[in-house]
Each structure stands twice: as C-alpha cells, then as structure tokens.
C-alpha cells in the first residue's frame, strides 16, 4: 500500500490544535473565574492566568448547596445506568448479531426506528406515572427509564457482528456451554473496547441529564446538575461561586472519560 496515504502534515496538526484549544477554552475560562473573584469580569481586558481563590470559592460551594449529596446521587444514578445499559445492550446486541430467532430482523429494525421517537416528549405521562408509583423525588425515577437505550443496542450489535467470529461461539457450544455462559466467556472479552466507549457515552449522558431530573426530583434530593442550577438561581449571580461549582462537577466526568478512552480506543482501532 502507498505509504503516503493519510500522512498528516503541519496544517493538519495546526487545525486539530486550534479545534482542541477551542474545545478546552470554556473549561479553562470557568476555572479562571472560579480561581479569582467576580470583579475580574468587569475588567476590560480580563486576566488570562488563574488566581489563588479557587479553594475558597470551592469551599463556598459546599456551604451553598448540598454538594456532597448531589455528587453521591449523581454517582449512584450514572453508575447504575451505565452498568445496566452496557450489560443489557451487550446481551441484546449479542442476540441480534449471533443468535437466530424468529422475528429477529423486524425487531432489530424496530429498535433502530425507535431512535427517532423523541422520548423527551413523554415527560408528562412519565411524570404522572412516577407520581402514581410514589417514585417522584426518588432516584429510581431517574434510573429506571434509562436502564437500556436503543443507541446502546444498535452500537453493540454493529460491533459484535464483526468482532466475534461464529467459530468461537460454535466451539463454546460444542464444549457444552449454555448460551449465557457463551456470552460471558466468549463474547464479553471480545467486546471490551466497544463496551468501554458505550460506557463512557452513557456515563456522560446520564451525568449531564437535566430536563428529566429537574422535573421528577425534589430540590432537597438533587443530582449534581440540579445543584449547579440552584447555585445560579438567585437574583444576584455570583459567577465565581457558580463556576467553581461547575468546575468541581466536571472533574469526575473528565476522569472517567479519559480513563475509559485511553483503555478502549487503541484496541478498537486495530483493523480486524
């Protein structure tokens, strides 16, 4: 193969660098404001280096809202949702990719079509149902609707089709494995990269979910996003305080995404 294909030059790196800098800028900006005080915003040319007030502002966040509780709630919700989404999506993806059963094709097409149904619009009846169940205000009201997604099933199915050869599954069956045992011992190890990416996307989505928690949870049992929104809902917005809060809330998700990205991508990008 011609080795010159796709060899990037200086301009490619320059373009990517600009893009990444633009991507990073709002994060940096919020840290900047959080590490100074609000007066910096009224200066004509704002300073571009962080000041020394970050920890003071961060401490005020913990006084202003129940930050630990919100953080704990978000970890519980996002953790559970991520686990179940990856597990159920992998199981369903395995069934659609490698098992033969009546109705498999139409059912899969149906799942893809449901991607087009805006579930967000169902918030009103869902709220009524949750209120009837007595779940409104409790975390399960946020967890249960997100146990598995159409995107997850679609994603895992597409990956498993190519990543798991039929021979392996056959071999497991000849050895007397049950279908579930085959899934655990043969399929799961083979799909780890795709599962890690799905886990990352799901965690981010769940961590950042706003509309539905806003509707169904109470202010005294918030997720992290609701706590952030509360920080800024006074008449006077203290931006150093609010942006210290947003910076704190972003740290966990940056850690999760960097870890899982570093683990998953190099492997998944090997050509099969």
């Amino acid at each position, binding site marked *: 193969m011609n080795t010159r294909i796709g060899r990037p030059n200086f301009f490619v790196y320059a373009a990517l660098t600009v893009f*990444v800098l633009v991507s990073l800028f709002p994060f940096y900006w919020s840290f900047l404001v959080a590490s100074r005080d609000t007066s910096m915003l009224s200066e004509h040319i*704002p300073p571009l280096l962080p000041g020394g007030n970050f920890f003071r502002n961060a401490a005020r966040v913990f006084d202003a809202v129940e930050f630990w509780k919100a953080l704990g709630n978000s970890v519980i919700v996002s953790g559970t949702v991520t686990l179940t989404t990856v597990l159920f999506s992998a199981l369903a993806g395995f069934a659609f990719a490698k098992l033969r059963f009546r109705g498999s094709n139409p059912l899969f097409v149906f799942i893809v079509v449901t*991607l087009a149904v805006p579930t967000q619009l169902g918030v009103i009846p869902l709220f009524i149902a949750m209120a009837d169940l007595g779940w409104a205000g409790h975390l399960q009201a946020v967890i249960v609707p997100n146990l598995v997604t159409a995107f997850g099933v679609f994603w895992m199915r597409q990956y498993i089709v190519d990543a798991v050869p039929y021979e392996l599954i056959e071999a497991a069956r000849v050895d007397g494995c049950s279908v579930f045992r085959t899934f655990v011992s043969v399929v799961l190890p083979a799909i780890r990269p795709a599962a890690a990416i799905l886990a990352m996307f799901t965690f981010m989505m769940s961590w950042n979910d706003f509309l539905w928690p806003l509707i169904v949870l109470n202010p005294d049992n918030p997720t992290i996003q609701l706590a952030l929104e509360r920080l800024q809902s006074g008449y006077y917005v203290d931006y150093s305080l609010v942006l210290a809060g947003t910076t704190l809330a972003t740290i966990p998700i940056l850690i999760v995404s960097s870890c899982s990205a570093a683990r998953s991508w190099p492997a998944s990008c090997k050509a099969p």
Partner: protein
Amino acid sequence: MTSTVVHEPRQRVRVRPSLKERLANWDVKVSPYLYIAPFFVVFGVVGLFPLLYTAYVSFFDWEIGDDNPKFLGFGNYVELMGDGQFWHAVGNTLSIFVLSSGPQLVVAVLLAALLNMRLRGPTGWRVGVLLPYAASLVALGIIFANLFGPRYGLINSLLESVGLDRVEWQANRFASHLAIATMVNWRWTGYNALIVLAAMQALPKDVMEAAVVDGAGPVRRFFSVTLPMLRPTLVFVVITSTIGGLQIFTEPKLFDAMPGSNNGGSTNQFQTVTLYLYQQGFEGFDLGYASAIAWVLFLLIVVIALGNFLLTRRMGRIR
C-alpha cells in the same frame, strides 16, 4: 451466514432426547428473547406508553392534581394553532436548529477525515475533540451566558478591542440564536466527528486502494469514495441531530439572564418549543395543553427528520 449457533438437531437413533439436551434446546430457543426483553420493557414504559398517553391527555383540560379533567376534543390543538407564542417558539427552534446542525455536520465530517489520518497520539486527539461532550450542559449554559454577557462578557470585550460594536447577545433575537447555536455546535461537533470516524475506519480498504491505483487524489477520493460510502452513518447522524436539535431545551433555559425563567428571554426571543412546553406544563400546570404541544412537536420532528433522511440519501446518490 454459513454456520450459526442454532443447529437443527441431527437425525439420531435415540428416540427421546435426554433431559440435558432438551434443556439445551430450550436454552437456545428462549435466551435470545430474554436478552432483548429489557429494551422492549423499558421502551414500552418510557417511549411508547408516554407517547400514547400524551395523545390521550392532550384531549383534556388537565391540570396537575386535577381529578376530573374536562374533555375538550381537539380544543387544545385548535387553541395551539392560533397561539402566536407557540409559532414564535417554532420559529426560534428552527432558526437555532439551522444555525447549529448545518455547520456542525460539515465540520464534523472534515474533522473526522483529519482524525482518520495517521496521527501521532491518536487517542489524545480523540479525547481532546470529545471533551466538550463531557461538559455538563448546566456548566456550559452558565459559561456561555457568561462569555456572551452583554456588558462584561469576553466576546463583547474582544469585539470592542478590535473596534467593532458590542452585540446584544441576549436582547437581539438573531444574535441570541447565534449564541445558543454556538453552544450546541461547541458541544456536539466532536461527538459527531467521532461517530463518523468510527464509520470511516470500518470502510473496506480495497476500494480506497483501487481509487489510488486509478490515480484519484486525496480530495477526489474523499468526495467520490469516502463520502458516498459513509451514507448510512451520515443518515444516522443527521437524524439523531435533527431529533436532538428540535427538542433543544437546556441551552436556551440556561442562557436566560433571568435565572429560573422559562420565558426564553424578556420577549421570548429565544424560547424554544420544548421550553414553552415546560413552561405550560410545569409552570402553568396545564398538562393537557403541554401534551398537545408535545404531539405537534413530535409530528414536526417526524416530518423534518423524514425530509432530512430523503435529502441525505439523495445527496449521496448523486455523487
């Protein structure tokens, strides 16, 4: 499909299969349905049921906590069709959608093409590009409202320092749409680029090599080989960003200078349909009317998504 998991049992001499064999057969038959069941249960509860129930509620004058809702027939819909604020919100939504989805898609595809080259440290670049997706929307709303602040915002400071007029990012209708679209683009471009990138990497190499052998340059290869072959993924990205874009809620809600307000600006200049829905349902407690808004928005999404689907397919075919 040469060999699959499910084999018809071969003709055997034995009359009855042993218990173990029957269990194994049962396992093979039932397992697939068990594995796909969670999705259908969840979808039934959070997708299908709400959609139908919303339709039902939309025919009533139904307030939160009301035990005897009054049946209105199409009353809510009739009222909605004459509701100026609703159409204003539809206009805002479409305007923000066009300003965000178009540029975003083009940049995402180009970015994916760059990321598809043999870069040094590919993972680092990918994470860098995806970072905005990790940003919480609430954080983002606050940061961008701050950046686009009319008095102390960084953007206006920059504009002034190069001798331009400051822009009323909140008060001016079009400017506010532009600011919100910027927020959307900033957050989603990298995400879509990575989805397109995943598809690019799955493209068969031999077609590309054939194009090289035929003497096609990189630009020609991109437009004549890569793009047409990416069509299924592009359709997917276009559809999902249509659905997401038309339901936009958090960005305009948090962009509002009045915290906690659902008005979408002092003159509703950036109130989107979902924001209006939220205002009617959970601020005005009029669930029937909000449900009618939900259904009209759903139909609107279906129509526009379908249009985009046909358009994307056709564009691919011409090439």
